[in-house]
Protein backbone atom coordinates (compact mmCIF):
# COMPACT_ATOMS: atom_id res chain seq x y z
CA UNK A 1 0.00 0.00 0.00
CA UNK A 2 1.45 3.33 -1.01
CA UNK A 3 1.71 6.19 1.46
CA UNK A 4 -1.06 8.09 -0.28
CA UNK A 5 -3.38 5.08 -0.23
CA UNK A 6 -2.66 4.74 3.46
CA UNK A 7 -3.58 8.31 4.10
CA UNK A 8 -6.76 8.04 2.09
CA UNK A 9 -7.80 5.17 4.35
CA UNK A 10 -6.87 7.18 7.40
CA UNK A 11 -8.88 10.13 6.15
CA UNK A 12 -11.86 7.81 5.89
CA UNK A 13 -11.54 7.02 9.56
CA UNK A 14 -11.12 10.65 10.50
CA UNK A 15 -14.14 11.68 8.46
CA UNK A 16 -16.28 9.05 10.11
CA UNK A 17 -15.21 10.34 13.48
CA UNK A 18 -15.97 13.94 12.57
CA UNK A 19 -19.36 12.97 11.25
CA UNK A 20 -20.19 11.26 14.50
CA UNK A 21 -19.18 14.33 16.47
CA UNK A 22 -21.26 16.54 14.20
CA UNK A 23 -24.29 14.32 14.74
CA UNK A 24 -23.76 14.28 18.48
CA UNK A 25 -23.43 18.03 18.60
CA UNK A 26 -26.76 18.44 16.86
CA UNK A 27 -28.63 16.21 19.28
CA UNK A 28 -26.90 17.83 22.23
CA UNK A 29 -28.09 21.20 20.99
CA UNK A 30 -31.71 20.10 21.00
CA UNK A 31 -31.17 18.61 24.46
CA UNK A 32 -29.82 21.92 25.68
CA UNK A 33 -32.84 23.66 24.26
CA UNK A 34 -35.22 21.31 26.07
CA UNK A 35 -33.20 21.61 29.27
CA UNK A 36 -33.41 25.38 29.06
CA UNK A 37 -37.17 25.18 28.66
CA UNK A 38 -37.53 22.95 31.71
CA UNK A 39 -35.30 25.31 33.63
CA UNK A 40 -37.37 28.37 32.72
CA UNK A 41 -40.48 26.45 33.73
CA UNK A 42 -39.12 25.41 37.12
CA UNK A 43 -37.63 28.79 37.89
CA UNK A 44 -41.21 29.95 38.14
CA UNK A 45 -41.38 28.38 41.60
CA UNK A 46 -39.25 31.21 42.97
CA UNK A 47 -41.91 33.76 42.05
CA UNK A 48 -44.24 34.59 44.88
CA UNK A 49 -47.25 33.35 42.95
CA UNK A 50 -45.42 30.23 41.83
CA UNK A 51 -45.70 28.41 45.09
CA UNK A 52 -49.23 27.26 44.57
CA UNK A 53 -48.45 25.96 41.13
CA UNK A 54 -45.67 23.63 42.04
CA UNK A 55 -47.57 20.41 41.30
CA UNK A 56 -48.72 21.78 37.93
CA UNK A 57 -45.23 22.92 37.07
CA UNK A 58 -43.88 19.48 37.94
CA UNK A 59 -46.41 17.83 35.71
CA UNK A 60 -45.41 20.07 32.83
CA UNK A 61 -41.75 19.41 33.46
CA UNK A 62 -42.48 15.67 33.40
CA UNK A 63 -43.92 16.13 29.95
CA UNK A 64 -40.74 17.84 28.79
CA UNK A 65 -38.76 14.92 30.12
CA UNK A 66 -40.59 12.84 27.57
CA UNK A 67 -38.86 14.91 24.88
CA UNK A 68 -35.57 14.50 26.71
CA UNK A 69 -35.99 10.75 26.63
CA UNK A 70 -36.53 10.77 22.91
CA UNK A 71 -33.54 13.01 22.36
CA UNK A 72 -31.28 10.90 24.55
CA UNK A 73 -32.53 7.80 22.80
CA UNK A 74 -31.50 9.43 19.56
CA UNK A 75 -28.15 10.45 21.02
CA UNK A 76 -27.17 6.92 21.87
CA UNK A 77 -27.69 5.79 18.29
CA UNK A 78 -25.08 8.22 17.06
CA UNK A 79 -21.98 6.34 18.17
CA UNK A 80 -20.78 2.83 19.02
CA UNK A 81 -21.89 1.87 22.50
CA UNK A 82 -18.35 1.16 23.74
CA UNK A 83 -17.10 4.63 22.90
CA UNK A 84 -19.14 6.46 25.49
CA UNK A 85 -16.07 8.01 27.07
CA UNK A 86 -14.60 9.01 23.76
CA UNK A 87 -17.39 11.49 23.21
CA UNK A 88 -18.28 12.06 26.84
CA UNK A 89 -17.28 15.72 26.85
CA UNK A 90 -19.94 16.51 24.27
CA UNK A 91 -22.92 15.68 26.47
CA UNK A 92 -21.37 15.88 29.91
CA UNK A 93 -22.53 19.39 30.64
CA UNK A 94 -26.11 18.97 29.45
CA UNK A 95 -26.44 15.65 31.24
CA UNK A 96 -25.41 17.22 34.54
CA UNK A 97 -28.00 19.89 33.95
CA UNK A 98 -30.68 17.32 33.23
CA UNK A 99 -29.78 15.44 36.39
CA UNK A 100 -30.25 18.65 38.31
CA UNK A 101 -33.61 19.31 36.67
CA UNK A 102 -34.86 15.79 37.30
CA UNK A 103 -33.65 15.97 40.88
CA UNK A 104 -35.41 19.32 41.31
CA UNK A 105 -38.69 17.97 40.00
CA UNK A 106 -38.46 14.93 42.25
CA UNK A 107 -37.63 17.11 45.22
CA UNK A 108 -40.55 19.41 44.53
CA UNK A 109 -42.85 16.43 44.20
CA UNK A 110 -41.74 14.31 47.14
CA UNK A 111 -39.04 16.24 48.98
CA UNK A 112 -36.66 13.33 48.63
CA UNK A 113 -33.33 12.85 46.93
CA UNK A 114 -33.65 11.24 43.55
CA UNK A 115 -31.48 8.14 43.33
CA UNK A 116 -29.12 7.53 40.46
CA UNK A 117 -31.41 4.78 39.28
CA UNK A 118 -34.46 7.00 39.37
CA UNK A 119 -32.70 9.72 37.39
CA UNK A 120 -31.69 7.30 34.70
CA UNK A 121 -35.29 6.13 34.49
CA UNK A 122 -36.56 9.70 34.11
CA UNK A 123 -33.97 10.28 31.40
CA UNK A 124 -34.54 6.93 29.78
CA UNK A 125 -30.93 5.86 30.03
CA UNK A 126 -29.15 3.03 31.82
CA UNK A 127 -28.15 2.96 35.45
CA UNK A 128 -25.48 0.45 34.69
CA UNK A 129 -22.48 1.19 32.48
CA UNK A 130 -22.38 -2.34 31.11
CA UNK A 131 -25.92 -2.05 29.75
CA UNK A 132 -25.36 0.94 27.49
CA UNK A 133 -25.66 4.71 27.53
CA UNK A 134 -25.41 5.42 31.24
CA UNK A 135 -25.00 8.19 33.72
CA UNK A 136 -21.44 8.74 34.94
CA UNK A 137 -21.33 8.92 38.70
CA UNK A 138 -19.54 12.27 38.74
CA UNK A 139 -22.16 13.76 36.47
CA UNK A 140 -24.86 12.52 38.84
CA UNK A 141 -23.11 14.05 41.84
CA UNK A 142 -22.52 17.29 40.01
CA UNK A 143 -26.20 17.60 39.21
CA UNK A 144 -27.09 16.96 42.85
CA UNK A 145 -24.80 19.76 43.99
CA UNK A 146 -26.62 22.15 41.67
CA UNK A 147 -29.84 21.05 43.36
CA UNK A 148 -28.44 22.00 46.76
CA UNK A 149 -27.69 25.51 45.63
CA UNK A 150 -31.11 25.88 44.02
CA UNK A 151 -32.76 24.75 47.23
CA UNK A 152 -30.91 27.31 49.30
CA UNK A 153 -32.37 29.93 46.94
CA UNK A 154 -35.79 28.32 47.28
CA UNK A 155 -35.56 28.50 51.05
CA UNK A 156 -35.02 32.24 50.86
CA UNK A 157 -37.84 32.82 48.42
CA UNK A 158 -40.22 30.57 50.35
CA UNK A 159 -39.91 32.88 53.29
CA UNK A 160 -40.52 35.91 51.09
CA UNK A 161 -43.63 34.15 49.82
CA UNK A 162 -44.74 33.60 53.40
CA UNK A 163 -44.11 29.86 53.54
CA UNK A 164 -42.15 29.38 56.77
CA UNK A 165 -42.20 25.63 56.96
CA UNK A 166 -40.47 24.78 53.72
CA UNK A 167 -37.07 26.18 54.81
CA UNK A 168 -37.07 23.85 57.80
CA UNK A 169 -37.66 20.87 55.58
CA UNK A 170 -35.03 22.03 53.11
CA UNK A 171 -32.56 22.43 55.97
CA UNK A 172 -33.02 18.82 57.05
CA UNK A 173 -32.67 17.63 53.48
CA UNK A 174 -29.49 19.61 52.79
CA UNK A 175 -27.92 18.44 56.01
CA UNK A 176 -28.48 14.86 55.00
CA UNK A 177 -26.97 15.62 51.62
CA UNK A 178 -23.95 17.23 53.24
CA UNK A 179 -23.37 14.20 55.44
CA UNK A 180 -23.65 12.03 52.35
CA UNK A 181 -21.01 13.99 50.49
CA UNK A 182 -18.70 13.88 53.45
CA UNK A 183 -18.62 10.12 53.04
CA UNK A 184 -17.02 10.56 49.64
CA UNK A 185 -13.31 10.76 49.07
CA UNK A 186 -13.35 13.15 46.13
CA UNK A 187 -10.28 13.35 43.94
CA UNK A 188 -11.79 14.91 40.93
CA UNK A 189 -10.89 18.55 40.85
CA UNK A 190 -13.97 20.11 39.40
CA UNK A 191 -16.35 18.04 41.52
CA UNK A 192 -14.31 18.77 44.64
CA UNK A 193 -14.51 22.47 43.94
CA UNK A 194 -18.25 22.35 43.44
CA UNK A 195 -18.60 20.35 46.63
CA UNK A 196 -16.78 23.10 48.52
CA UNK A 197 -19.67 25.33 47.50
CA UNK A 198 -22.12 23.06 49.33
CA UNK A 199 -21.02 24.32 52.70
CA UNK A 200 -22.17 27.83 51.74
CA UNK A 201 -25.58 26.45 50.88
CA UNK A 202 -25.73 24.66 54.22
CA UNK A 203 -24.77 27.84 56.03
CA UNK A 204 -27.26 29.95 54.13
CA UNK A 205 -30.13 27.65 55.00
CA UNK A 206 -29.06 27.47 58.61
CA UNK A 207 -29.27 31.23 58.71
CA UNK A 208 -32.75 31.20 57.25
CA UNK A 209 -33.86 28.69 59.85
CA UNK A 210 -32.21 30.84 62.48
CA UNK A 211 -34.10 33.93 61.32
CA UNK A 212 -37.38 32.05 61.49
CA UNK A 213 -36.57 30.49 64.80
CA UNK A 214 -35.57 33.68 66.62
CA UNK A 215 -38.81 35.30 65.54
CA UNK A 216 -40.86 32.33 66.60
CA UNK A 217 -41.85 31.73 63.02
CA UNK A 218 -40.51 28.22 62.95
CA UNK A 219 -42.96 27.21 65.61
CA UNK A 220 -45.74 28.74 63.60
CA UNK A 221 -44.35 26.84 60.63
CA UNK A 222 -44.21 23.62 62.58
CA UNK A 223 -47.84 23.84 63.64
CA UNK A 224 -48.82 24.76 60.08
CA UNK A 225 -46.86 21.85 58.77
CA UNK A 226 -48.46 19.65 61.34
CA UNK A 227 -51.85 20.63 59.98
CA UNK A 228 -50.83 20.34 56.36
CA UNK A 229 -49.27 16.95 56.35
Amino acid at each position, binding site marked *: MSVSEMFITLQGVLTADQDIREEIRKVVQTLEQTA*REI*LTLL*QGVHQGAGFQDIPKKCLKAREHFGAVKTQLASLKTKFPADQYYRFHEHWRFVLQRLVFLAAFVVYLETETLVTREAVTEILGIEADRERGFHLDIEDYLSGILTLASELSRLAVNSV*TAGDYSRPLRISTFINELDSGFRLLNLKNDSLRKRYDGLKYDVKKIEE*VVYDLSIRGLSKEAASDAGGEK
Partner: protein
Amino acid sequence: GQRKDEKDNVNSSSSLMVSFKSFQLELDTRHDKYERLVKLSRDITIESKRTIFLLHRITSDPNGEEILNESEAKLEAVRQKIKQVAQELIGEDMYQFHRAISPGLQEYVEAVSFQYFIKTRSLISVKEINKQLIFTMEDKEEETNTPSSNPYDKQLCTWSLKVTPVDYLLGVADLTGELMRMCINSVGNGDIDTPFELSQFLRQIYDGFSYIGNTGPYEVSKKLYTLKQSLAKVENACYTLKVRGSEIPKHMLADVFSTKAEMIDREEGLS
Protein backbone atom coordinates in the same frame (compact mmCIF):
# COMPACT_ATOMS: atom_id res chain seq x y z
CA GLY B 1 28.13 48.32 1.72
CA GLN B 2 28.56 48.29 -1.96
CA ARG B 3 25.57 46.08 -2.55
CA LYS B 4 23.09 48.61 -1.33
CA ASP B 5 23.02 50.50 -4.57
CA GLU B 6 21.95 47.60 -6.64
CA LYS B 7 18.65 47.54 -4.84
CA ASP B 8 17.83 51.08 -5.76
CA ASN B 9 16.53 49.93 -9.06
CA VAL B 10 13.21 49.12 -7.50
CA ASN B 11 11.36 51.69 -9.47
CA SER B 12 9.22 53.78 -7.18
CA SER B 13 6.80 54.48 -10.00
CA SER B 14 6.33 50.85 -10.99
CA SER B 15 2.73 49.69 -11.03
CA LEU B 16 3.41 47.59 -7.95
CA MET B 17 4.66 50.58 -6.04
CA VAL B 18 1.75 52.66 -7.22
CA SER B 19 -0.75 50.15 -5.92
CA PHE B 20 1.08 49.77 -2.63
CA LYS B 21 0.96 53.52 -2.21
CA SER B 22 -2.79 53.30 -2.59
CA PHE B 23 -2.81 50.46 -0.07
CA GLN B 24 -0.93 52.66 2.34
CA LEU B 25 -3.56 55.33 1.99
CA GLU B 26 -6.40 52.85 2.38
CA LEU B 27 -4.95 51.25 5.49
CA ASP B 28 -4.09 54.55 7.13
CA THR B 29 -7.54 55.90 6.43
CA ARG B 30 -9.09 52.84 7.97
CA HIS B 31 -6.88 52.91 11.05
CA ASP B 32 -7.48 56.62 11.55
CA LYS B 33 -11.19 56.10 11.42
CA TYR B 34 -10.92 53.22 13.86
CA GLU B 35 -8.96 55.40 16.23
CA ARG B 36 -11.49 58.22 16.03
CA LEU B 37 -14.23 55.73 16.82
CA VAL B 38 -12.36 54.37 19.84
CA LYS B 39 -12.14 57.88 21.21
CA LEU B 40 -15.82 58.53 20.64
CA SER B 41 -16.61 55.23 22.29
CA ARG B 42 -14.63 56.23 25.38
CA ASP B 43 -16.54 59.50 25.57
CA ILE B 44 -19.82 57.66 25.25
CA THR B 45 -18.82 55.27 28.00
CA ILE B 46 -17.85 57.98 30.44
CA GLU B 47 -20.92 60.08 29.90
CA SER B 48 -23.21 57.07 30.12
CA LYS B 49 -21.61 56.04 33.39
CA ARG B 50 -22.13 59.52 34.78
CA THR B 51 -25.77 59.39 33.75
CA ILE B 52 -26.15 56.20 35.73
CA PHE B 53 -24.60 57.78 38.80
CA LEU B 54 -26.95 60.69 38.40
CA LEU B 55 -29.96 58.38 38.20
CA HIS B 56 -28.96 56.62 41.41
CA ARG B 57 -29.41 59.95 43.18
CA ILE B 58 -33.14 59.65 42.60
CA THR B 59 -33.67 57.20 45.46
CA SER B 60 -32.43 59.74 47.97
CA ASP B 61 -33.39 62.95 46.27
CA PRO B 62 -36.83 64.56 46.52
CA ASN B 63 -36.44 66.19 43.15
CA GLY B 64 -36.87 63.07 41.08
CA GLU B 65 -38.37 64.90 38.17
CA GLU B 66 -35.47 67.29 37.99
CA ILE B 67 -32.95 64.46 37.96
CA LEU B 68 -34.87 62.68 35.23
CA ASN B 69 -34.76 65.81 33.15
CA GLU B 70 -31.09 66.22 33.79
CA SER B 71 -30.47 62.59 32.82
CA GLU B 72 -32.44 63.14 29.65
CA ALA B 73 -30.18 66.04 28.76
CA LYS B 74 -27.11 63.94 29.48
CA LEU B 75 -28.36 61.08 27.36
CA GLU B 76 -29.13 63.51 24.58
CA ALA B 77 -25.50 64.64 24.75
CA VAL B 78 -24.43 61.00 24.51
CA ARG B 79 -26.65 60.57 21.49
CA GLN B 80 -24.90 63.52 19.89
CA LYS B 81 -21.67 61.56 20.28
CA ILE B 82 -23.35 58.48 18.83
CA LYS B 83 -24.47 60.69 15.97
CA GLN B 84 -20.83 61.41 15.28
CA VAL B 85 -20.15 57.68 15.33
CA ALA B 86 -23.01 57.15 12.92
CA GLN B 87 -21.63 59.87 10.70
CA GLU B 88 -18.26 58.15 10.59
CA LEU B 89 -20.02 54.95 9.61
CA ILE B 90 -22.07 56.34 6.74
CA GLY B 91 -21.49 54.08 3.80
CA GLU B 92 -19.38 51.69 5.90
CA ASP B 93 -20.06 48.18 7.11
CA MET B 94 -20.49 48.96 10.80
CA TYR B 95 -19.29 45.51 11.79
CA GLN B 96 -15.87 46.40 10.44
CA PHE B 97 -15.51 48.91 13.27
CA HIS B 98 -17.70 47.15 15.77
CA ARG B 99 -14.93 46.35 18.21
CA ALA B 100 -14.11 50.04 18.47
CA ILE B 101 -17.62 51.18 19.32
CA SER B 102 -19.13 48.20 21.10
CA PRO B 103 -18.02 49.12 24.66
CA GLY B 104 -19.52 52.57 24.36
CA LEU B 105 -22.78 51.32 22.92
CA GLN B 106 -23.16 48.73 25.68
CA GLU B 107 -22.69 51.37 28.32
CA TYR B 108 -25.24 53.57 26.56
CA VAL B 109 -27.75 50.70 26.56
CA GLU B 110 -27.13 50.31 30.28
CA ALA B 111 -27.77 54.00 30.94
CA VAL B 112 -30.78 54.40 28.70
CA SER B 113 -32.46 51.23 29.95
CA PHE B 114 -31.84 52.28 33.55
CA GLN B 115 -33.54 55.59 32.92
CA TYR B 116 -36.37 53.82 31.13
CA PHE B 117 -36.87 51.44 34.03
CA ILE B 118 -37.04 54.30 36.49
CA LYS B 119 -39.61 56.05 34.34
CA THR B 120 -41.75 53.08 33.32
CA ARG B 121 -40.76 50.15 35.55
CA SER B 122 -40.27 48.08 32.41
CA LEU B 123 -37.55 46.99 30.06
CA ILE B 124 -36.79 49.11 27.04
CA SER B 125 -36.63 47.10 23.84
CA VAL B 126 -33.77 47.21 21.39
CA LYS B 127 -36.18 48.65 18.88
CA GLU B 128 -37.02 51.59 21.07
CA ILE B 129 -33.36 52.22 21.71
CA ASN B 130 -32.60 52.22 18.02
CA LYS B 131 -35.53 54.51 17.30
CA GLN B 132 -33.70 57.19 19.22
CA LEU B 133 -30.57 56.62 17.17
CA ILE B 134 -31.96 57.86 13.89
CA PHE B 135 -30.40 61.18 13.16
CA THR B 136 -31.41 63.88 10.76
CA MET B 137 -29.23 66.53 9.27
CA GLU B 138 -30.51 69.56 11.08
CA ASP B 139 -27.33 71.46 11.64
CA LYS B 140 -26.87 73.45 8.50
CA GLU B 141 -23.26 74.29 9.34
CA GLU B 142 -22.20 70.67 9.23
CA GLU B 143 -23.88 70.15 5.97
CA THR B 144 -22.08 73.02 4.37
CA ASN B 145 -18.82 71.81 5.82
CA THR B 146 -18.81 68.60 3.88
CA PRO B 147 -20.87 69.29 0.81
CA SER B 148 -19.01 67.35 -1.83
CA SER B 149 -17.40 64.38 -0.20
CA ASN B 150 -20.47 62.79 1.30
CA PRO B 151 -22.84 61.27 -1.24
CA TYR B 152 -25.53 60.79 1.35
CA ASP B 153 -26.02 64.47 1.98
CA LYS B 154 -28.66 65.15 -0.53
CA GLN B 155 -30.36 61.86 -1.11
CA LEU B 156 -30.86 60.86 2.51
CA CYS B 157 -31.16 63.46 5.17
CA THR B 158 -31.30 60.87 7.93
CA TRP B 159 -28.91 58.23 8.98
CA SER B 160 -28.87 55.88 11.89
CA LEU B 161 -26.89 53.53 14.01
CA LYS B 162 -28.22 50.21 15.17
CA VAL B 163 -27.28 48.71 18.48
CA THR B 164 -26.79 45.01 17.83
CA PRO B 165 -28.84 42.47 19.79
CA VAL B 166 -25.66 41.27 21.47
CA ASP B 167 -24.62 44.76 22.55
CA TYR B 168 -28.15 45.21 23.81
CA LEU B 169 -27.99 41.98 25.81
CA LEU B 170 -24.64 42.87 27.29
CA GLY B 171 -25.89 46.30 28.26
CA VAL B 172 -28.99 44.83 29.88
CA ALA B 173 -26.86 42.31 31.75
CA ASP B 174 -24.91 45.20 33.24
CA LEU B 175 -28.14 47.02 33.95
CA THR B 176 -29.02 44.31 36.44
CA GLY B 177 -26.03 45.32 38.53
CA GLU B 178 -27.38 48.86 38.71
CA LEU B 179 -30.84 47.56 39.57
CA MET B 180 -29.36 45.56 42.40
CA ARG B 181 -27.65 48.71 43.73
CA MET B 182 -30.92 50.55 43.43
CA CYS B 183 -32.65 47.81 45.40
CA ILE B 184 -30.23 47.91 48.30
CA ASN B 185 -30.42 51.70 48.27
CA SER B 186 -34.18 51.50 48.50
CA VAL B 187 -34.09 49.21 51.49
CA GLY B 188 -31.62 51.55 53.16
CA ASN B 189 -33.99 54.40 52.50
CA GLY B 190 -36.92 52.60 54.02
CA ASP B 191 -38.66 52.16 50.72
CA ILE B 192 -40.33 48.76 51.04
CA ASP B 193 -42.14 48.53 47.72
CA THR B 194 -39.31 49.08 45.28
CA PRO B 195 -37.27 46.05 46.38
CA PHE B 196 -40.14 43.68 45.66
CA GLU B 197 -40.78 45.32 42.31
CA LEU B 198 -37.10 45.11 41.50
CA SER B 199 -36.86 41.47 42.49
CA GLN B 200 -39.80 40.67 40.25
CA PHE B 201 -38.23 42.55 37.35
CA LEU B 202 -34.73 41.17 37.86
CA ARG B 203 -36.10 37.65 38.03
CA GLN B 204 -37.76 38.17 34.67
CA ILE B 205 -34.49 39.32 33.18
CA TYR B 206 -32.67 36.45 34.80
CA ASP B 207 -35.21 33.97 33.45
CA GLY B 208 -34.78 35.60 30.04
CA PHE B 209 -31.03 35.21 30.16
CA SER B 210 -31.26 31.61 31.30
CA TYR B 211 -33.71 30.96 28.49
CA ILE B 212 -31.06 32.20 26.08
CA GLY B 213 -28.43 30.33 28.05
CA ASN B 214 -25.35 29.48 26.06
CA THR B 215 -26.93 29.94 22.64
CA GLY B 216 -25.62 33.48 22.64
CA PRO B 217 -22.00 34.45 22.27
CA TYR B 218 -19.52 33.73 25.01
CA GLU B 219 -19.58 37.27 26.41
CA VAL B 220 -23.28 36.90 27.17
CA SER B 221 -22.96 33.54 28.94
CA LYS B 222 -20.07 34.97 30.92
CA LYS B 223 -22.36 37.57 32.49
CA LEU B 224 -24.82 34.95 33.75
CA TYR B 225 -22.88 34.39 36.93
CA THR B 226 -22.81 38.07 37.95
CA LEU B 227 -26.47 38.32 37.04
CA LYS B 228 -27.27 35.41 39.30
CA GLN B 229 -25.38 37.05 42.14
CA SER B 230 -27.23 40.33 41.68
CA LEU B 231 -30.51 38.48 41.73
CA ALA B 232 -29.49 36.65 44.91
CA LYS B 233 -28.67 39.95 46.59
CA VAL B 234 -32.06 41.35 45.64
CA GLU B 235 -33.88 38.20 46.72
CA ASN B 236 -32.04 38.25 50.03
CA ALA B 237 -33.01 41.87 50.56
CA CYS B 238 -36.67 41.01 49.99
CA TYR B 239 -36.33 38.06 52.30
CA THR B 240 -34.97 40.31 55.04
CA LEU B 241 -37.79 42.79 54.54
CA LYS B 242 -40.31 40.01 54.83
CA VAL B 243 -38.71 38.38 57.84
CA ARG B 244 -38.41 41.55 59.87
CA GLY B 245 -41.88 42.62 58.78
CA SER B 246 -43.17 39.36 60.22
CA GLU B 247 -42.64 40.55 63.75
CA ILE B 248 -45.41 43.08 63.62
CA PRO B 249 -48.92 42.90 62.25
CA LYS B 250 -49.19 44.46 58.83
CA HIS B 251 -51.73 47.11 59.83
CA MET B 252 -49.36 48.53 62.37
CA LEU B 253 -46.59 49.22 59.91
CA ALA B 254 -47.68 52.67 58.85
CA ASP B 255 -47.92 53.65 62.47
CA VAL B 256 -44.51 52.39 63.24
CA PHE B 257 -42.96 54.26 60.41
CA SER B 258 -44.55 57.53 61.23
CA THR B 259 -43.46 57.15 64.83
CA LYS B 260 -39.99 56.42 63.71
CA ALA B 261 -39.89 59.37 61.37
CA GLU B 262 -41.02 61.52 64.23
CA MET B 263 -38.28 60.14 66.39
CA ILE B 264 -35.67 60.96 63.88
CA ASP B 265 -36.96 64.43 63.42
CA ARG B 266 -36.82 65.02 67.10
CA GLU B 267 -33.40 63.50 67.25
CA GLU B 268 -32.14 65.83 64.62
CA GLY B 269 -33.63 68.75 66.36
CA LEU B 270 -31.52 67.86 69.35
CA SER B 271 -28.21 67.35 67.69
